[in-house]
């Protein structure tokens, strides 16, 4: 696994740059990850990212778009606005989680 330096800290990532160690993430790092892919974080973005973190911890898997909308209470349209074009992957990246494995 490669490591990369974010905010002066070494973090473990996969070949694409998705973080692989849950506890190496904090919100400061999340902010830098968001900046790296051109997402300007607002409270609404943080609501989604915090849900992803908690749900991953509870379920052991990155939630899909549908799950963020049904269990996280942020509707799908909004997710496409907050994280344009590829919301599922972008949310996961910023939250320091693997890409969602589920199809739906």
């Amino acid at each position, binding site marked *: 696994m*490669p490591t*990369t*330096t*974010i*905010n*002066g800290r070494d973090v473990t*990532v996969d*070949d*694409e*740059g*998705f973080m692989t160690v849950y506890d190496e993430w904090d919100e400061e790092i999340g902010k*830098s990850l968001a*900046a*790296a*892919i*051109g997402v300007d974080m607002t409270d609404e973005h943080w609501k989604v990212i915090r849900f992803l973190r908690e749900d991953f911890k509870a379920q052991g898997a990155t939630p*899909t*778009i*549908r*799950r963020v*909308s049904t269990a996280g209470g942020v*509707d*799908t*349209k909004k997710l*496409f606005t907050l994280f*344009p*074009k*590829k*919301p*599922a*992957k*972008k949310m996961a*990246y910023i939250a320091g989680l693997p890409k969602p494995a*589920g*199809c*739906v």
Partner: protein
Amino acid sequence: MTAVESMIVPSFDDEVETDRTLAIICSKGSLDMAYPGLILGNAALGEGVNVHLFFTFWGFDMITKGRMEHLVFSPVGNPATHIPAALAPLPGLAKMATHQMQKAMDELEIPPVPEFLDLIKASGAHIWACRLSADMNHLSEDDLWEGVDGIINASDFIEMTDGAQLLFI
């Protein structure tokens, strides 16, 4: 931001102005054949691809208000169920198979067809109903699911999906 420059950052292809379009023709009205188009369309939308779905012939049931919640998975004439052909038409078997399939989908967190349509619509899908199918069934827009963008003919659909990749299901 020097910190960012040294990072490994995934490419989300944001800078690429893609006009990739996927056109999906849904022509089947059984529960098992309703899902492939919805799943692939949803996956494409999640990858930033434009998606147009055209519902035609039996696929029309998927977007017809009175039918969309009652699609059936029948073992009759469906060798993929591995039920002997002579037993497939037994009373109650289609009902049981439908129930089993709904349960299996639910366990995988795959929504029922109407909710799935809501999901892809919210994700930006364009939903078209076939003019000929509407006329054959004497149905108008009032009979169709509210997410339908319009009733169009086959030529309209071919024209509007110029250059698209196409799936016929």
